[in-house]
């Protein structure tokens, strides 16, 4: 008996969730077994069970640190979206500005953040702001680069149509270039989401005890010094879950905004 299309679809969706979960389960089981059989001490490699226990015990205090890191990450992401989008807009409005400033955006991007973070921390007195600036420097470039491409990719025929009807520059921007750039902007934002988190973590590493509040990165550093490896893994786990959640949220936002018309947001061919 051949399965009906609806059943086939449900089964495909089930596979998409079940297959990665199964792989994860197998890897975790293998990990636990090796740690158990070989008798690896927890300060070298703790088993998943011990990590889960630590996560449960240290959870509340780690969650507090996570909140600190998350605040920096989200603020940096918001700044990347707004300022990055603004820079791209300026670039598209003025060719001279784009030509003269774009290389510096690239320089800012390729300079390792670890190298300039100490400077920023010295210059910007307020710790939260210093970390924010570091994370923003890492995160803003994908938004600028993608949005600039998007603003310049307006359909030639549509552009001709707009000119034919005597559209002003402002109208072309509002009704043609901004909608065209939206998918590009959102793609850039998805990359920036992960980078903002990485930037925040790196900046915290460099800052050390940056102020009274300690972020998750500092907890990792501290756990490493104290050989509290299970706690290190627990913090690491929280960090990657945060990254995944940020990505999923931005992906959902992108789908929501583009669901009516963009190919990337259309699930399956209808009918």
């Amino acid at each position, binding site marked *: 008996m051949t399965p009906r299309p609806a059943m086939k679809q449900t089964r495909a969706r089930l596979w998409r969730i079940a297959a990665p979960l199964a792989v994860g389960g197998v890897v975790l089981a293998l990990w636990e077994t090796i740690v158990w059989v070989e008798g690896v001490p927890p300060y070298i490699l703790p088993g998943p069970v011990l990590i889960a226990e630590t996560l449960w015990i240290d959870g509340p205090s780690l969650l507090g640190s996570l909140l600190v890191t998350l605040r920096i990450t989200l603020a940096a992401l918001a700044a990347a979206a707004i300022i990055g989008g603004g820079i791209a807009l300026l670039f598209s409005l003025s060719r001279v500005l784009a030509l003269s400033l774009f290389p510096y955006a690239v320089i800012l991007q390729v300079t390792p953040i670890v190298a300039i973070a100490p400077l920023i921390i010295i210059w910007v007195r307020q710790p939260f702001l210093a970390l924010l600036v570091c994370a923003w420097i890492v995160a803003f470039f994908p938004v600028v680069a993608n949005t600039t491409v998007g603003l310049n990719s307006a359909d030639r025929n549509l552009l001709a149509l707009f000119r034919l*009807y*005597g559209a002003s520059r402002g109208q072309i921007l509002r*009704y*043609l270039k901004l*909608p065209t750039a*939206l998918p590009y902007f959102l793609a850039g934002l998805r990359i920036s989401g992960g980078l903002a988190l990485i930037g925040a973590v790196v900046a915290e590493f460099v800052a050390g005890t940056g102020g009274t509040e300690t972020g998750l990165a500092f907890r990792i550093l501290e756990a490493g010094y104290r050989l509290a490896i299970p706690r290190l893994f627990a913090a690491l786990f929280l960090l990657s879950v945060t990254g995944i959640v940020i990505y999923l949220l931005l992906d959902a936002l992108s789908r929501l905004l583009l669901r009516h*018309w963009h190919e990337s947001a*259309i699930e399956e061919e209808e009918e």
Partner: protein
Amino acid sequence: MPWSTVFDNVLLPLRLARRAGPAERERTAAEIRSVGLTGFEQAYPRQLSGGMRMRVSIARALVTDPDLLLLDEPFAALDEITRMALNDDLMRLWDSRRPTVVFVTHSVFESVYLSTRIAVMTPRPGRIVADLPIELAQPRGRDLRTSPHYATLCATVSRHLAKAMAAGIR
């Protein structure tokens, strides 16, 4: 514009002219009705067939009530059945307001069916080599396509076109 509904696409010329009040909205809705897309006002272009998208384009061109309409192979990508239907609709729309239409096509049958006057052009360089009046009664209906007179006219235009193509190749 793929990101806008049919309604917003048709309203665009008026919006660009900064005239998008209630009267213009009413006019947009009427134009969508006149090209036979009632009920699709809030649909997005990707939900429409090729023929329906072309109807949206025509509605958008007509919404400003122009005196001159320039159509460059508008129906080239459509299948024969859709094409004939759109030909008839175009004739009906033209008949109700009589703008001047310059219609570029690669189809001899389409040209004879729609025109009052046909200019045959050579390829590269594009020169007009024949100017043929088409004296067929208005309104033209489906019966015309099978009439002997229509066939004769098509043959004449085809002959001129073949000559023009030969001239272009040399």
